[in-house]
């Protein structure tokens, strides 16, 4: 019976980080669907979200303002990135686009280091720090905020793509850009919008996790890679798959760090990615491409 108590704790922390990976992974999927680009700068949007929310909170100590302000600022960065770095590319081969987005990631990280320095900054939890207990396991209110807001964001995203005209237009572009253009959809604008939406999603993930992990200029790289792993594990471009992939990754990682060694936590995450890439590259949910 003793073995189950820590397991529940691992499960809770795994689901929390898994929800974050899922949100980041969905950002990758949205851009991939509309452009078949993998935006390697997605992780830096997560970092920018956390850091700008922390900065805004210092000016106006109100969490809702910080959340909305951070998300809006980063969405703008996403739009600008698409306009300045990706639209002017003359030869959009995957190799070129990988290099450009990797370059953007490195650049954003470097600028963040110059702006905020190398220290880690705290963001207060959304509703206090009083833990409550579930059997042997401890749950922080912030864990519930992460899980709850992830559900809300995913539902909102699904509703946006299914119900709104803009969302439907974006889906049309991802199925067939030329046909979408023929029926009068501004495909270029939809591509730009997908960068904005996914940057906003990443920023949201960053602000949710900041109270648990602190905000540092270099937090984005690892979170971005894990989010991408989540997207691949679930099946790139699939909403359900992305969520599932994130949760699988988060739980696997938490179990590994609890049962094996916390030093190998990140190695387990990428080992899982390599196994999925090699055995089932279309992901757990995705169909054959």
């Amino acid at each position, binding site marked *: 019976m003793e073995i189950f108590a820590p397991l529940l704790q691992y499960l809770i922390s795994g689901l929390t980080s898994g929800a974050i990976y899922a949100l980041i992974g969905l950002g990758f999927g949205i851009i991939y669907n509309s452009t078949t680009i993998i935006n390697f700068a997605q992780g830096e949007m997560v970092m920018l979200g956390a850091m700008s929310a922390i900065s805004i909170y210092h000016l106006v100590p109100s969490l809702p303002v910080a959340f909305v302000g951070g998300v809006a600022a980063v969405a703008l960065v996403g739009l600008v990135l698409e306009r300045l*770095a990706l639209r002017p590319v003359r030869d959009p*081969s995957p190799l070129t686009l990988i290099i450009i987005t*990797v*370059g953007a990631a490195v650049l954003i990280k470097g600028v963040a280091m*110059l702006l905020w320095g190398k220290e880690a900054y705290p963001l207060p939890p959304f509703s206090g720090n009083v833990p409550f207990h579930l059997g042997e396991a401890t749950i922080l209110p912030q864990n519930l905020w992460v899980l709850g807001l992830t559900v809300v964001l995913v539902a909102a995203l699904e509703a946006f793509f299914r119900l709104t005209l803009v969302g439907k237009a974006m889906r049309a572009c991802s199925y067939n850009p030329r046909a979408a253009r023929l029926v009068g959809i501004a495909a270029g604008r939809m591509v730009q919008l997908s960068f904005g939406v996914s940057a906003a999603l990443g920023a949201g993930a960053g602000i949710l996790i900041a109270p648990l992990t602190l905000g540092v200029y270099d937090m984005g790289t690892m979170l971005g890679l894990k989010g991408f792993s989540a997207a691949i594990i679930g099946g790139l471009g699939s909403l359900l798959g992305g969520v599932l992939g994130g949760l699988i990754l988060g739980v696997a990682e938490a179990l590994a760090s609890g049962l094996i060694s916390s030093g*190998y936590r990140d*190695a387990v995450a990428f080992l899982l990615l390599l196994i999925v890439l*090699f055995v089932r590259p279309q992901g757990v949910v995705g169909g054959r491409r």
Partner: protein
Amino acid sequence: MKLRRCLNRWVLFAATVLMLAAWLDNAYYYTLLNFIGIHTLLVVGLNLLMGYGGQISLGHAAFFGLGAYTSGILTATCGVNPWLALLAGLILSGGAAFLIGIPALKLRGYYLAMATLGFGIIVYIILNEARALTGGPSGLSGIPSLALAGWPLNTPRRLYLLIWMTVGGILALSANLVNSRTGRAIRALHDSEEAAESLGVDTARMKLKIFIWSALYASLAGSFYAHTLNFIAPASFGFMFSIKLVTMVVLGGMASIWGSLLGAAVLTVLPELLTVFHDFEVVIFGAILMVVMIFLPRGLVRGIMDLWEFRHFKREGGSFV
């Protein structure tokens, strides 16, 4: 005409290497030149993969690290002959590249980038965590210097000739590879995999071959690096170093053997010349990657040459119509 120009380059290269060996008498310059040489080995290999194969490795520092640590551990801890250790590093790196390459190269586009990235991070974590073997984050020291026929290569100047003769050999080998049947097949698959396949090129095998070659070059560079510094730590083999290598390839020009030498030289010397460079290093690498790929996708030298030729052409009243 083309042959003569080609030959002239090699003569110029050999003459420069020998002249520097005769004239320079400052250990610092030799150390710097040795690092340029080691980086060139890495960049030529990566350039074969990126420029000619159209694939990308975002974890090339891992192969560099495997070479360095195999040499380091076998010589410092086990007392194996450095040349045998170097060979063991090559076998290990080549084997790892083979295992990763088989599944990843069958997939297109982003998958090799992601697989190599994951591999790079796993190797980096193992180097940090397997303390008993690698010495952990504080590194592995006491690596002996190389020796050639009983003559210890323990000063930067003595190493210089070995490293640059190797660089010359690798450059020649790569130029030869690029112009061989394999090389033509590889370039064909860069332009269009379907077209290459329809002409009977076994694309998966070609990509695997070039991926293994580039891993072997990196491992060789890693072994030299370990014996040059006599000390290695995981920090030299992280994600940022992989990015630095990609930046060198991009700056020197993809699909350019000599460009690799230039890219490695510029990005090794610049941080030494400008101390400011260190604070802004990350920003500068990012900016180089983006600006070069957006505006000069053929690399710095060729891009500027193209611009110059274009202006020249217009001044002489030429027109493209």
